[in-house]
């Protein structure tokens, strides 16, 4: 619902500013990932407030939609929660588009369990087995003799797809309950001692009360367990379930595109990143951005 509302509002903004755009105003078009839309929308609002006369229109539709629009020169910036595929790169080359990647935030997916459940440390491998339905009882993980109840998102969620590709590398157990959003997973797990689920870290970062325990995860057997709530562990990559959130532009950015991306990466922009529940980019990605797109 929220997504449609945003779409509607963005459509309204486009319509409202369309007239002015025709009168010679330059308008920045941003398209793509639904994970990023709230964040970039918020950044654009603040940016437009500070720079009257500069116009930015943002629409969602998913990472694939944004990248396709960039290739067809229908937008200036493509939001993408994944990397461009080789096929998309060659399509872009065919149309003389040179995609440059900028990382603007880090997203971490947290695994949560009920506090009454003794187990709250997992390796990546164990999580894969749990969510594929191969480990069915908590006692196999050293817990009580309780069957595991899985909670996840519905198939239209980007988090569903990311977690599947990154942790499971297979299909979810068909017994996993498909919940109607992050908030519902959190509230269901708070009441269910047999539960395990995954949500965006923004939903558990400032959680007070409730019987939610954020699990520590290790990248492999023997590696250190790290929590997604620790800024350092996510930034250093010690916490294994995180992904960079990207924007793609055509060629090294100039003009308003450059100006806006510089704002996103500035202290003020990165503060908004934190406010929206994501993580600021670490230094290595700042270096990467310089190398990749000269910003």
């Amino acid at each position: 619902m929220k997504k449609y509302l945003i779409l509607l509002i963005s459509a309204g903004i486009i319509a409202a500013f369309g007239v002015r755009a025709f009168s010679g105003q330059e308008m920045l078009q941003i398209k793509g990932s639904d994970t990023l839309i709230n964040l970039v929308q918020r950044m654009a609002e603040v940016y437009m407030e500070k720079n009257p006369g500069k116009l930015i229109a943002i629409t969602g539709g998913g990472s694939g939609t944004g990248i396709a629009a960039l290739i067809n020169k229908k937008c200036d910036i493509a939001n993408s929660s994944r990397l461009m595929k080789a096929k998309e790169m060659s399509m872009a080359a065919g149309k003389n588009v040179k995609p440059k990647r900028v990382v603007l935030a880090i997203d971490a997916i947290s695994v949560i369990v009920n506090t009454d459940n003794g187990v709250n440390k997992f390796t990546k491998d164990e999580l894969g087995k749990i969510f594929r339905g191969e480990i069915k009882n908590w006692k196999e993980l050293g817990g009580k003799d309780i069957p595991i109840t899985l909670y996840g998102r519905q198939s239209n969620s980007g988090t569903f797809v990311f977690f599947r590709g990154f942790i499971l590398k297979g299909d979810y157990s068909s017994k996993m309950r498909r919940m109607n959003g992050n908030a519902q997973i959190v509230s269901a797990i708070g009441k269910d001692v047999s539960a395990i689920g995954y949500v965006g870290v923004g939903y558990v970062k400032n959680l007070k009360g409730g019987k939610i325990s954020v699990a520590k995860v290790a990248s492999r057997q023997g590696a250190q367990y790290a929590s997604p709530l620790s800024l350092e562990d996510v930034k250093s990559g010690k916490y294994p379930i995180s992904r960079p959130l990207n924007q793609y532009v055509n060629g090294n950015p100039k003009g308003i595109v450059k100006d806006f991306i510089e704002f996103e990466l500035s202290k003020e922009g990165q503060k908004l990143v934190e406010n929206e529940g994501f993580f600021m980019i670490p230094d290595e990605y700042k270096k990467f951005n310089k190398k990749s797109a000269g910003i």
Partner: protein
Amino acid sequence: MIKLKEKMIEGFFLLNGLLVVFVLAGIFALLVFTSVPAFKEISLSEFLFTSNWNPTSYIRESYGIGAMLVSTFMVTFGALLIAVPLGIGVAAYMSDIAGDKVREIAKPVIEILAGVPSVVIGFFGIVFVGPIIAKVFGIYNGLNAINGSVLLAIMALPTIISLSEDALRGVPKSFEQASLALGASHWQTLTRVKIPAAFSGIIAACMLGMGRAIGETMTVLMVTGCAPAMPHGFWDSVRTFASTIAIELGEVPYDTTHYYALFSIGLVLFIITFFINMASDILLHKYQKVEK
């Protein structure tokens, strides 16, 4: 002049009648035409007789509606099992036992229940009904078919009560008086005379309640957990036809097998409701003939 006016009015009503038929036929045709392309890639037997629905699989797509079919019927019949006895009981109480004052308060309250939005009922199911079910049955959570059934029963109740009560009140007073005069007790009169006499109306009320339950989307989507596995009992999570369409239609890429397959599910749901309505209609007429 008057004749012309008559003719025009007649034509106007005919047009209205035809419009309804046309809309229904239009929906059916749309469903059929958008379903057909799905079967270029899915075999009909896979669609109807396998139980695995996973069109966005990591490994291999599968399009079986078996588990959803079972889920939909489980939730619907579970709801009827609760709502029909309760609904008829309340209707009998309201028509025969309750005083005018009680009825004056109870009837509007029941009608307000019908107006509660399904999202609100779903929320009620998550925070209130679910934990109670978990406690009562000693299971770990309440996101299962029972929860869906209980909530759908709540949603179907106003329809069943209201229409059953009308049917019971429609039974001629002379039936009741004759029964009482012959020495039957109040209870005997109600169960052996009034309810059988109002049977067609009560059946129609239950069928309408069922129609409300089978297509209900939001409430079921919120409280049944929506796991696509074949359910093995009322304690398991279920995923109905309507929830599947609601979850997947929003994000499915246009012009793909998955897109058309979702319309095929819609067609199946349409056919099921069509047959339920037809069956209730046949039943209604059969009993009306007996009464005459």
